[in-house]
């Protein structure tokens, strides 16, 4: 199949960007979208031009490295699928597809389609952990956890930190990402101990990093490759509002 691409090029964070047109004639339906970009890049290098930079690593939808706006949608048109797992069978020969980076105030562009998502790491460092050090942990079965709670914790823990939620949100909010970690740990007795303090610290950090607020558009949930539910955001808000009361007690 033949695919026309309009790809965002930008040489650095402060340089102007623009869309560049390319055509790949050797596309095929079994190819992943990133493999299509690989083919384009091989073509560009052979022509003596600079390849399009983009992040990827596992190419299995689990590391969260990849992230592109494909035809205006974070990770492209297939639901619950990271762009590395999006296959060309979702498109037709002759299609023109626009490819842009994840855009948000808190995600400066590094180059072309590569963005800086380090704000996510700083949100986690604000409290997205259980404050235990290595050693001295009690037997793993000492505290029973209902299957339902463990499953719900896992539903939220499945977040891959790709940033699609931010890119899709009209406010550029990181609420789904932040809530996923807060909810994951809040469903487990090991995490609950610090829940209130965690919610306060992480939400404040999110705001300080320049992410916007949540106004319930739910665009984040729609593009999340792991299908993380916005119910987590409600939980985060509750903990945040109760936080000042309960954090003191903690």
């Amino acid at each position, binding site marked *: 199949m033949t695919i026309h691409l309009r790809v965002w090029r930008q*040489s650095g964070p402060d340089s102007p960007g623009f869309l560049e047109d390319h055509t790949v004639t*050797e596309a095929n339906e079994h*190819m*992943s979208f*990133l*493999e299509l970009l*690989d*083919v384009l890049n*091989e073509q*560009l*290098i*052979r022509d003596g031009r*600079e*390849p399009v*930079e983009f992040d990827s*690593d*596992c*190419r299995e*939808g*689990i*590391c*969260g*490295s990849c992230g592109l706006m494909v035809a205006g949608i974070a990770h492209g048109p297939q639901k619950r*699928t990271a762009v590395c*797992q999006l*296959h060309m*069978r979702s498109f037709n020969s002759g299609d023109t597809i626009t490819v842009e980076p994840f855009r948000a105030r808190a995600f400066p562009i*590094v*180059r072309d389609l590569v963005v*800086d*998502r*380090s704000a996510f*790491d700083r949100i*986690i*460092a604000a*409290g*997205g*952990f*259980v404050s*235990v*050090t*290595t050693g001295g*942990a*009690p037997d*793993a*079965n000492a*505290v*029973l956890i*209902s*299957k339902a709670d*463990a*499953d719900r*914790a*896992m539903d939220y*823990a*499945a977040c*891959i*930190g790709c940033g699609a939620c931010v890119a899709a949100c009209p406010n550029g909010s990181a609420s789904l990402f932040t809530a996923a970690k807060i909810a994951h740990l809040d469903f*487990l007795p*090991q995490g609950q101990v610090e829940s209130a303090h965690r919610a306060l610290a992480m939400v404040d950090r999110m705001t300080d990093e320049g992410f916007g607020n949540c106004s319930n558009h739910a665009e984040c949930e729609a593009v999340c490759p792991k299908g993380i539910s916005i119910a987590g955001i409600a939980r985060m808000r509750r903990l945040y509002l109760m936080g000042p009361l309960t954090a003191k007690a903690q």
Partner: protein
Amino acid sequence: MTQSNGAAGQPRLEAKIPDGHLQDKWDNYKDAVALVNPANKRKHTILVVGSGLAGGSAAATLAGLGYNVKCFCIQDSARRAHSIAAQGGINAAKNYPNDGDTIWRLFYDTVKGGDYRARESNVYRLSQLSANIIDQAVAQGVPFAREYGGMLANRSFGGALVSRTFYARGQTGQQLLLGTYQALSHQIAAGRVAMLPRREMLDLVVVDGHARGIVTRDLVTGTIERYAGDAVLLCTGGYGNAYYLSTNAKNSNVTAAWRCYKRGAFFANPCYTQIHPTCIPVAGSYQSKLTLMSESLRNDGRVWVPKDPADQRAPDQIPEADRDYYLERRYPSFGNLVPRDVASRAAKKECDDGRGVGETRLAVYLDFADAIDRLGKQAIGERYGNLFEMYERITGENPYRTPMRIYPAVHYTMGGLWVDYELQSTVPGLFVLGEANFSDHGANRLGASALMQGLADGYFVVPYTVGAYLNRHDRADSVSADNPAFAEVQGAATRRIERLINSDGDKTPTQFHRQLGIILWNHVGMSRTRAGLTHAIAAIGELKEEFWSRVRVPGTAATFNKNLEFAGRIADFIELGDLMARDALRREESCGGHFREEFQTAEGEALRNDDAYMDVAAWEYGDPTPHLHLEPLTFESVQPSTRSYK
């Protein structure tokens, strides 16, 4: 090629195994080890390269103890290390299901699974520590699968007759790594770890014979930087990407380990690679990597091919009588659960004999129809739902309805830098953890044991042994990055980058990588011969020359430049490929994943030669050819036998 075990002037391979009974060695070690004064710990800087399970757990633990830690990784976040992709599970001798597991049994299975080519004492320690890992992970909030009563759930994994594998859906590596990453974030917040993502280690700095620093490239700005420390921990993962197509992530590489090798760290058993039996088959020449389908699928899936090579019917049209469940037939007691090396070779044999299925005929079926009949679609969905979805996304086929097509793919490397019992390499002060070392899996790794090893190394072993090293070598004499040795190494790294970027060739780095991959897959892959290996060494030599004269690296060195990164790594993979072939050529026996066609039983099983090759082959860098050192393996507690899974 010269052989020695401690010839004059050469470091002896001293494994430093503690005295005492196998069961007591680790306790004896810990009892005797000198502790670092807590007040002095923060004066010591430890450089941890890698943030996977091994690096992340080591960095978090050492920082928790009070050391000053710098941690480096290639990805934009520590959380994206390749460990994240592990699916199936992690072993631990907890015996929660009460099905007869013990520390000894886990140890025995692992040593046997490795075809008696691993060091007994290390493997025993690994089994001992396995239970602590689960406790630690649960305390961090890792949401392992649970039973309705609230207890942790277990499943069995290839090569074991007990259920000792803990898992978090099909995302065990992700959840363990996030636990580690969160522990690391805790220490970052406390100011005890400086995390340096998007950094690639390009070389090791050795001062007065000790590892005292590293040189890195900032992958965003291209700046070549130097970092000094009192010890270096290399936790940079495996080198399976040498084959180009593998289940490893795109950034997995051998560069850091290879640089250390060139600075004096011995490389052990480079030919031991694991070819995993259940991966999605190659679809086309554009393919960038292969996707694993977790081994756990073999608990419920049955592997088969049509009996008649000419049978072109769709799988659901082929009646039972015309199917060959060849693993169940050949290995009645383990059936579909035989270890990976055995299952992979069996699949290859079926395809070589013309019974392969699918368009390329390089695949076998993995069929869930019986399990779905027996347990219901929902139960199967709970166990493997995310894997089924992934399979469908990639192939467009629904495994609930039609059997999966699978084929073996390169997955893991048992070889790696040689380490002693303390996980220290032949360069003092350079410790190697996780998949990057060679230590615990012998010639074949059992499923669910790499996660265990990485975390045992990082959480529980190295925190003791680094302290022991720091005590032995008073590090009051801190070396700074102004030491001339740093400038020299930095200069060499810079020149190499310039050479790559300035070489005005006509082939892309990926073209070379593919070529290397084909040579290695065909001749240093699932089955090897003297003639094939000799050919590979010559072909790789030619490829190396061609690479440096014809590679074209686009762009400049002063920006984010993925192809420049790849080019440097491919150059190292080419050199490694040569060493892998040499090692495979030297080992005139078949063991685990290393199958030499000349050495097999009448039934086509691996034929070990314990009299001649019960050893670790540790290679020392030499130009033009490497030098071989041998560490003999002695088995005091188990009696090496021919592995049988019949």
